[in-house]
């Protein structure tokens, strides 16, 4: 067994943003083992202060080009809670539909473009296109569907323009919905092929039990609103999110770390699966069985498998939502009215592709944002990634440094980290390093 191992992955590839994996094992004991986050802080919260509430969703959507609808939705829910807005049933249905479009887009990007190359033994999606063109073309078709669904509902592939506080400013026509329904039906073959492909991959068996946190709903596998659930048996209202996140600074990261009942917790598809798999649609449950995903699952690499399960679930849910909307008919609606009051606070939460996202705003009587706080999933996962790395490294010491490096990179990628989104605090100590 190797007594000394040094791994230094500078700017890990196939993740969003800049992070380094640093491992230093001397005489068989771990001196350093962490994911360094070196991305520049973003300061979106400061940007929001003094801005009218109705701009917030458009500004914060720019935090991320992948989960823009997620940020916009969490932002709208925060403002709507602060401004005592009651949403119509139609608004809720349309928001869910757009949310699914983005969930699909993000998961397809992650499992096909970022994860599959590791398993199919190619360095990136470009050689994958040469060796498995059918796989990449399928991914592109599925991504196009997702983007077009978002565009039909919120006006754009990314950065929704038609969602506003209290409702929508544009509504899909019956033809739009029928067209997307038809395409969703056609997509089912690609979804099946996706499950088939990912069912053949040798998922690493590394396992470390941790606390899993996700939004829970009494009767659905939901992504918007609900309660904050934990596998350690807690259920809290969204407004109590700070009790869960307990953000703290970490010397090796420009993003804050989080901890609830233990030293760290995990959010994202695997956490959602562990907490609410019984609410998945039947075909998604079958997919989970095919992928070897069994709740509770403590294998972090399986987060990507859980994303595949959510792809199946979301496509089936898109069909159900479109059917419901077609049956009800989509009517033009004014956004629901707001009530301004001094120092009103509201918290919005969504389970975006990478896990729970919180936005909290304080809005003055003049409609200007006085205070804002955004807590991003990747930030919540960072502490858990570090602890996984520390547990994983000792099991790999008999392998070559190249193999160790590859396994560690795959572990970090499994969390689908979105590093640029999570950085919003500059640790002064870090700068001089």
């Amino acid at each position, binding site marked *: 067994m190797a007594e000394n191992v040094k791994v230094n992955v500078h700017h890990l590839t196939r993740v969003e943003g800049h992070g380094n994996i640093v491992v230093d094992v001397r005489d068989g004991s771990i001196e350093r083992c962490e994911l360094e986050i070196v991305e520049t802080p973003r300061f979106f919260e400061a940007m929001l202060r003094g801005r009218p509430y109705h701009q917030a969703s458009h500004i914060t959507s720019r935090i991320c080009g992948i989960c823009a609808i997620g940020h916009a939705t969490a932002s709208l829910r925060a403002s709507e809670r602060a401004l005592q807005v009651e949403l119509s049933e139609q608004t809720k249905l349309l928001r869910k539909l757009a949310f699914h479009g983005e969930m699909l887009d993000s998961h397809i990007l992650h499992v096909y473009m970022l994860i599959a190359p590791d398993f199919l033994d190619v360095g990136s999606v*470009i050689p994958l*296109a040469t060796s498995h*063109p059918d796989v990449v073309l399928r991914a592109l078709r599925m991504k196009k569907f997702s983007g077009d669904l978002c565009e039909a509902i919120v006006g754009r592939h990314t950065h929704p323009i038609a969602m506003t506080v209290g409702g929508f400013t544009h509504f899909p026509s019956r033809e739009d919905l029928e067209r997307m329904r038809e395409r969703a039906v056609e997509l089912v073959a690609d979804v099946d092929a996706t499950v088939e492909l990912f069912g053949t991959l040798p998922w690493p068996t590394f396992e470390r039990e941790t606390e899993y946190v996700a939004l829970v709903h009494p009767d659905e596998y939901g992504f918007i609103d609900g309660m904050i659930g934990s596998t350690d048996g807690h259920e809290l209202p969204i407004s109590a999110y700070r009790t869960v996140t307990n953000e703290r600074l970490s010397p090796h990261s420009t993003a804050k770390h989080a901890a609830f009942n233990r030293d760290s917790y995990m959010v994202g598809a695997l956490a959602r699966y562990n907490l609410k798999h019984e609410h998945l649609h039947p075909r998604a449950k079958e997919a989970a069985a095919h992928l070897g995903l069994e709740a509770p699952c403590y294998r972090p690499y399986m987060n990507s498998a859980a994303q595949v399960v959510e792809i199946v679930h979301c496509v089936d849910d898109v069909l159900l939502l479109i059917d419901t909307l077609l049956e009800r008919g989509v009517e033009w609606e004014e956004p629901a009215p707001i009530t301004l009051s001094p120092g009103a606070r509201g918290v919005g939460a969504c389970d975006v592709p990478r896990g729970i996202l919180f936005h909290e705003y304080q809005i003055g009587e003049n409609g200007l944002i006085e205070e804002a706080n955004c807590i991003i999933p990747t930030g919540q996962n960072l502490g858990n990634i570090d602890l996984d790395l520390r547990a994983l490294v000792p099991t790999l010491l008999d392998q070559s440094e190249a193999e160790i490096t590859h396994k560690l990179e795959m572990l970090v990628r499994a969390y689908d980290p979105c590093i640029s989104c999570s950085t919003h605090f500059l640790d002064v100590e870090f700068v001089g390093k």
Partner: protein
Amino acid sequence: MARTLILGVGNPLMGDDAFGIRVVEALQGVELPSDVDVVDGGTQGLGLVLVMEPYHRVIIVDAVQMGLPAGTIRRFAWQDVQVNAGQVLSLHQSDLAAALTLAEALGVLPPEVVIFGVQPHNTEWDQPMSAAVEHALPVLVHSLIDEVRREDTYEPKSSDY
């Protein structure tokens, strides 16, 4: 189905990078052959693979760093560009280069891919287009119209039969 796609790409908020999008806007009022589509590709990345796929010929308009005087227009074939990738041509939109590379690897790149590049002066946020690039706009629009009215070189000729 149209055979030719004119694809303007770029970010209209970033100075001369607006060029491709401004060309798309300028073509809105122009009568083009019926087999020509004009699309605003914005800052899309890999999604462009499927946008381009159905066409026989794609003409891309973008700001391109070529080390030439600002406003200079150059016409390249994608195949020629690849040879010198990284030196002659560093597309401001690296996502476009990725899309073209991916399409090629997938074997779905249209047979004819032409790039009309303009040398930008300034691609900073929140700037207007520079005067030199503004002057290049009508020139390029004319060249484009000539290009799409030119006989398609891949069209089977009567002598082939």
